[in-house]
């Protein structure tokens, strides 16, 4: 087998924000991410974030599919099938790295990787960004975007965002 250790840049944790022109990128640590599937998951008391909603609460749910949400910073839930609620739940707190891109140039950077527009709403925040499956939505303020990506691809996404940020 071919030794490729020199072909791949060793991963660097994103301790400090990366500064781009008119935008910056940092990693976010969340208390919890839970994947919840079931026929009624879109009906709950928590805010359900679609695109281009801006999530403003400490705990919220991301709308992924008609039968799936991701609950952010919610309570600890037992994993598995809950027959009473008719829901399947799995902890995915370690499965997704959460990045945050903020600034005037942020949306333009994202447009390098996905066909996205504030004028074109979507019921799901799941999409492909630079070919990677992500959950993408606004958080806190209008020019701040959170991106959940499979942890094994977080280096790749950071590299793509960095390259995209270099274009004027």
């Amino acid at each position, binding site marked *: 087998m071919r*030794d490729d250790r020199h072909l791949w840049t*060793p991963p660097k944790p994103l301790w400090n924000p990366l500064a781009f022109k008119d935008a910056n990128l940092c990693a976010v640590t969340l208390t919890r991410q839970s994947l919840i599937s079931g026929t009624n998951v879109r009906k709950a008391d928590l805010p359900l974030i679609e695109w281009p909603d801006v999530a403003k609460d400490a705990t919220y749910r991301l709308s992924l599919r008609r039968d799936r949400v991701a609950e952010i910073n919610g309570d600890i839930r037992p994993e598995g099938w809950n*027959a009473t609620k008719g829901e399947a739940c799995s902890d995915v707190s370690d499965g997704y790295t959460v990045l945050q891109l903020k600034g005037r140039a942020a949306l333009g950077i994202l447009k390098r990787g996905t066909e996205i527009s504030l004028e074109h709403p979507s019921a799901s925040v799941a999409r492909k960004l630079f070919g990677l499956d992500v959950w993408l939505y606004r958080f806190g303020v209008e020019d701040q975007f959170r991106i959940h990506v499979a942890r094994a691809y977080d280096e*790749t996404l950071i590299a793509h965002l960095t390259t995209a940020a270099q274009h004027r």
Partner: protein
Amino acid sequence: MRRLDDKGAVIDRAKPLNFTFDGKPYQGFAGDTLASALMANGVRIVGRSFKYHRPRGFWGAWVDDPNAIMSVTLNGIELPNCLATTTYLENGMEARAVNAWPTAKHDIKGGLDLFHRFLGAGFYYKTFIWPDWHLFEPMIRKMAGLGAVTPDHLDEFHSDQIHDHCDTLIIGGGASGLTAARVAAEAGQNVVLVDDQAQPGGSSYQTGTIADTAAADWIAAQMAAIKTAGGRVLHQTTAYGVYDHGLIACVENGAFGTAPRLWRIRAGRAVLATGAIDRPLTFAGNDKPGVMSLFASAEYLVRYGVLASDNAVVLANHSMAKEAVATLTAAGMAITQIDPDTPGLKAGGWQVTNGISVSGRHHPSDVVLATSGLTPLVHLWRHAGGKLTWDDARQAFLPDGQLSNMQAIGAANGTFDLNHALDEAQAAGLGQSHPRQDTSHHLTPVWPKPGSKGRQWIDFQHDVTLKDIEVAARENYVSVEHLKRYTTLGMASDQGKTSNMAGLAAMATLKGATIPEIGTTTFRPPFVPIPLEVYHGAKTKQLYHPVKRLVLEARHRDADAALCEYGGWLRPGWYGNGAAADHIRDEAMTARTTAGILDGSPLGKIEVMGPDAEAFVNFVFYNTMTTLKPGHIRYGFLLTEGGIVYDDGVVSRIDNDRFLISCSSSHVDGVRSLLENWRQDGNNPDRIFIHDLTMQWATITVTGPKARDILNGLDLDADVSADALPHMRFIETHHQGHPLRIARVSFSGDLSFELSIPSRHAPNLWDKVTAVAGTMDAHPIGIEAMSILRAEKGYIMVGKDTDGETMPQDVGFGIPRRKKTNAFVGDRSLHTDKANVPSRKVLVGLSVPHGEPPLVTGAHVVTDGANQRSLGYVTSSYHSPFLSRAIALGMIEGAVERVGDEVTVWHDGSNRRARIVSPCFLDPNGERLHA
């Protein structure tokens, strides 16, 4: 040809620029194209035609020029095949004519033209047959091609690629496009205007005034109004293709040597204001340098201040020519007009034209300005699926009918009258349709006359002449596509912009048909040639097919792991900086004598939950899963509908309605898709839910005789003794407060545990495990060593030991095929003729005499005797350090009955002998496994 002092709307005389062409130095100005600068310097021969190497001059002023193709070098970057008319001048540019040596003016291959009689269209189909095409081909190949490509990689040549949306995309910034953009923007639409020149305005500079304003001022006012109203304008941007669902692809050019930017614009609607281009006339000698487009000549004057000549002969068949003639005359050109329909018209001169001869008279001039009408640029309309209609008055194909998301205006719509065009633009800006008015101009059709004398060009770049079209008609290549392909008319880099119409018209005359009856060839993107890099962008090197990274990668690097690509992940192949073979051997030995620690995190972990989970898992798996109890693990196969092994893995039942599928790391996405597809097809998706948790959990495998001792050294709460945790069982416990799942499964054939923990805690667990292991002389091992261990046991790797034919019974799992009663995916295919033939390839071991090297993976087992054929192949082959011998697995026909037989193994012409044995070379009773 010279520069006038008082003209040139887009050049900046304060910024002179130096450049060279074919080695000679010249000067131009900022705003010039290479073409306008060369013309200002009186350069008349700028290239050579493709086949006959005839001298070529400028025909057009923008994308419609087929002749002026140059390779251009600047600051060490060389770009082949640049069109001089669309390449903006920069200081220090060195341009060279392609396909000419040493210069365009003096090309040694110019003599080829002497043989033109024998080199007509399609000549190569009629000869080179004997003795062999291969004798002639190298010479033909060397003569073909335009520019040469340097083998260097331009490291900075990367395209930015961006998605964008707008309500209204206006394509073309001439008078019509500017008006439509302004109206649309002022009406509150989200507007983007793309114009392919550095200075918009299209051909408006030729119009003295628009709405009582000087053209340049009028253009500036529209631009200001568009921007004030919030519209965006992209300059030097060409819309080159229309794709499904309103997607329009554009390239934005920048400074020379930079890769263009790709814009993928999803437009609610598009307004096509791409204008029209001038049409050549077909007459004897019409390819000579100096014969150029009348309207291009006007364009050179108004935009760049270049007067093509002080005197010219004008050949025009329509009244629009009047304005161009007036513009040129006012600038001092002495013009003689000649009726282009006069028989016997001929452009004289040797290398360049010296004027027109007709009816016994010669009219001397340096340039012949020709036009036979305007051809609307309808390419994008056709990409979008719009139809065309033939218009007799204009002798042109015009957009016809309606498209839901595109309308054409102005010259692109055949509307050449400016006032009508502005009306259309006004309506289009508001999203309204507007009927096309009759043109106020009149035109007398003047098309090629087949049978007339003299060499008359149709396609200037490919040297297709009227005679070639006559031959094509004579030989029945009469359909428009046959005509094009047989003569190569329209297949040059200008894609027929200046040749298609003349070609169609000639064929129409030859067939006694009308031009619309001949039809057009298919208009295909891109509208102009664009660098391949436009499609490439940032997806390069590590961003091309990126690999998945382990959470423990830093640990592995610290331990000098050789990181290799396995199934889309970057994983340790072995550890150490020395010879790979040595490390792998040591690791394999360690794993069998003490223990090996392997990062198994990429292994798939897909949970299936819900009231129908059990029935569903039983349906998608070959093996029976209904009898799997909570806490138990079972090995199984996922089959395709064709009964072929798609993946193998283990299924753990966590609860009555919760299963964990551990599929191969390389197949996780595929398995997840397979499960989701079947969930929705024939099953009730409201009762089955599938969560892919592969990234959530890291897995550390501890395998070997000391495995249990290592686990006991971790201070776990759990009892991992042989009684408490037998083989193929799992328990859920904790490590330092975090959930830990311990599964007793084995890929090595030894006592083996898989410890799964949420990924963020993996480094801590890894450190603990390796520390304890180290005290027992157990170490991390990589995939290479593990591959040997599993082969010693005859455990398959799907995709290596199996292929597109392998069914589960071929690898030793035949019972469910006979006994499983519930329906499952692939069931019926397991009972076809082929599924039952005795000669199926099955998995066996192959053994060679002690001391011989391993067999080559990919060698075939062959029949002995005459008519040798393959019986199968070696799929895995290693030297086993633990067994001190070579071992191999293979898929061989009917081999189960042949265990013990000797066979011939063939590789690259050499034979070896091997014996068919059981695929399990180690511990067949499983004592090590069940320790």
